[in-house]
C-alpha cells in the first residue's frame, strides 16, 4: 500500500515537473532546456528563435502580429511566447502600417519562430520525461574530461 502511494506521488511529481518544463519553455524560449540542465542547448534555442522573431517584427513592423484580422497567423505566432499576446493587444487597433512583401516576410519569420518554439517545447518535455538532461550532461562531462 505504502509502495503504491509512493509510486503515485512520484508519477504526480514527474507530471508536474513536465508541465513546469513545458510552461517555462513556452514563456521564455530555451528556458525548458535550461531547467533540465541543457544550458548550451537552451542558449542556442533562445538566441536563434528570438533573433528570428525580432527580425520578423523589424521587417514587417509590429503590425504583423494581429489577432483581429490575421487570427490564423496569430495562433502560430503566440507559440513563441505569451508575450506575443501583449504585442497583439497593442496592435489590435491597427495603428501600425503593414503591407506588401515586408508583411509576407515578417509574418513568415514570426510564425516560423513560433512553430520552432513548439518544437523546442516538445523537445524539452520529452528530454525531461526521459531524464535525458542529466544523462547527457554526465556523458558530456566524461567526454570533455
Amino acid at each position: 500500500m505504502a509502495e503504491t502511494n509512493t509510486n503515485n506521488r512520484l508519477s504526480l511529481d514527474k507530471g508536474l515537473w513536465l508541465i513546469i518544463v513545458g510552461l517555462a519553455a513556452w514563456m521564455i524560449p530555451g528556458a525548458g532546456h535550461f531547467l533540465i540542465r541543457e544550458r548550451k542547448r537552451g542558449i542556442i534555442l533562445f538566441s536563434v528563435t528570438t533573433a528570428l522573431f525580432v527580425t520578423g517584427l523589424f521587417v514587417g513592423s509590429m503590425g504583423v502580429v494581429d489577432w483581429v484580422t490575421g487570427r490564423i497567423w496569430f495562433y502560430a505566432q503566440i507559440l513563441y511566447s505569451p508575450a506575443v499576446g501583449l504585442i497583439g493587444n497593442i496592435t489590435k487597433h491597427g495603428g501600425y502600417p503593414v503591407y506588401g512583401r515586408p508583411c509576407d516576410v515578417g509574418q513568415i519569420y514570426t510564425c516560423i519562430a513560433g512553430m520552432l518554439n513548439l518544437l523546442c517545447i516538445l523537445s524539452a518535455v520529452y528530454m525531461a520525461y526521459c531524464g535525458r538532461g542529466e544523462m547527457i550532461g554526465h556523458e558530456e562531462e566524461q567526454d570533455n574530461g
Partner: protein
Amino acid sequence: MADYGLVLAAFTAPIEIGTTPSSMLWMFPLLAAIALVYKATKMRVLFTKKYLLESLLLFLSVSGFLIMAIIVLNLLSWLVTS
C-alpha cells in the same frame, strides 16, 4: 533614452523590400534558423564543432533543394509561355 526610442520606432513601420527576385534571398536566414534549431533539438549530445557542421550540412542541402526547385519551376514556366 532617445536611442531606445529610435530602436523601438524601427519596429513600428515595415522596411522596404521590393517584389523582385532578390527578395527571395530572405529565405536563407530562415533556413539557417530552421537548421540550427532542428539540429539543436535532434542531436543527442551537443559538441560545438559537430553541431555547427551538421547544421551547415542541413542548411546547404535544404538550400540546394530549394534552388533546384526554383530552377525547375522557372524552366517549366519558360517552356509553357514560350
